[in-house]
């Protein structure tokens, strides 16, 4: 009972900018389905009244105070950039729009 189709994988791969071969699409569809099926077992253990949760323990956020701390220097910030110019990261021509 495969929940993840080959088309699903192709679409996700395109969105995630991952190049997959035809063969890989088949493999991934099968493997991802197996993972989803395994996790789906949990559904059988809960009923409608159980709220969805993203963490096994109820934990709450701890805040940071709004106080300025240290930043990197420009040289440090750019030190691992593949390309830089005028103190900025230089990236290839971008097609499409800003969000």
């Amino acid at each position, binding site marked *: 009972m495969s929940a993840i189709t080959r088309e699903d994988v192709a679409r*996700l791969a395109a*969105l*995630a*900018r991952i190049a997959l071969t035809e063969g890989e699409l088949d493999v991934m569809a099968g493997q991802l389905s197996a993972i989803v099926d395994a996790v789906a077992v949990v559904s059988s253990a809960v009923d409608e009244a159980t709220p969805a949760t*993203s*963490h096994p323990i109820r*934990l*709450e*956020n*701890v*805040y*940071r*105070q*709004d*106080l*300025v*701390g*240290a*930043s*990197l*220097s*420009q040289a440090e*910030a*750019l030190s691992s950039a593949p390309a830089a*110019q*005028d*103190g*900025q*990261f*230089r*990236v*290839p*021509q*971008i*097609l*499409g*729009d*800003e*969000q």
Partner: protein
Amino acid sequence: MNQQMEFMSFDEAMQRFDPVFGIEVHVELNTATKMFCSCATSFGAPPNTLVCPVCIGLPGSMPTLNKKAVESAIRLGLALNCSIASMSRFARKNYFYPDLSKNYQISQYDEPIDYDGYVEFELDDGTEVRVDIERAHMEEDAAKLTHVGGAAGRIHGANYSLVDYNRGGVPLIEIVTKPVEGMGERTPEVARAYVAALRDIVRVLGISDARMDQGSIRADVNLSLRRRVEAGQDQGAVPFGKRTETKNVNSLRAIELAVRYECERQAALLTAGQPVVQETRHFHEDTGATTSGRSKEEAEDYRYFPEPDLLPVCPPAKWVAELRASLPELPARRRRRLQAEWGFTDLEMRDAAGVLDLIAGTVEAGASPAGARKWWTGELMRTANEQGISPEELPVTPGDVASLEQLIAQGTLTDKLARQALAGTLAGEGPPAAVVAARGLAVVGDDDALGKAVDDALAANPEVAEKIRGGKTAAIGAIVGAVMKATRGKADAAKVRALIEERLS
């Protein structure tokens, strides 16, 4: 295709169609540090000097949530009459663009901090409008990109882009309205007034610089049209049409123009039997037009999922109650209170709309509300308009205007002299009292000096004096005129008249 097509006049578009709009406003907060790291948010720093492993997305770095940003989000939510979620969550919005270092933006998705609110405000003619708020959520701003090569600054044809991450990670709140229906031909005006009202609220809360011209408030406008029904039928029963989203509309005027333009453009398409494409559009400040951007069908899949590096935000009820109790007086309520205190009519209030703070300041500095209103809505508003600046930018303070009023009340200045004193202040000659001293503007209040001027005038015009003695009181004007001339307008005309009558009775 869109360029060549015929346009429909706005009036005709409104006869045939019923517009529905929604607005997303991004407010950049004025916290000292970024949303998830302790880098400063100050502007104008050299590129990539306000960055750290968190805000340039280096592996292994972890976000830590700014308490002040959450406080600002709660305060804004309360001011917008929203419910504050007892538990809200951050989510990752995934997309690939170099303005995001991580390939995702930390935002909020189905569990925003503020939800179900409303804003009430007035249009220019005093009509009250209410816009419902769907939600307001927290997120981080993106970096600033500069496209190099090709047509200057444009994406298409650029050879490469430069990225400055200083702005990346600065806290934003995005406020989303519910669809606003039933505004008809007032839709562009309502859209503008809504954003203006939001800006005023944000300003009073002090949570943002609230400068549209500097990008600290940015609006995206959604608009669709639907067929207008016959009188007596239910307009609300007609489903919404396909909508467009016009991005980054960055002035109040631009909001009005963009809404108007989309109404005209979509009406022409629909009337010609062509579909409206659901897409992102760009507004051009210079032409007032919108042009097609990215089609929504391609990539509108952000694959949101809960941000695993941040825990749910659970503001204690006590904290929220404290923030509610300490909210400042909001603009709509303040306007109602000031009107009651000042005894202004609705019309006077409308005239004073653009100078309300200045009038309030002037009253606070001791002037009468009527006096303060007279100067600010008259002489000063006119001067500001002539110079193309806002009244706040005039070199006159509320204190100056109050002292002008005082000088009149004390009898030091007549209305006419007060105008001259104000002209001096506007010309940079200092506060009114200093102008009065320097220009020798004060009313000749000294009875002896004024009496002598009257005697001189009577002596110089014996035949007029004779007429007055003979009962022709209309002739008094000529002597008053002569005295005013001799004192260069610095005498109180009523007083001069009394002195003449006293001498000739």
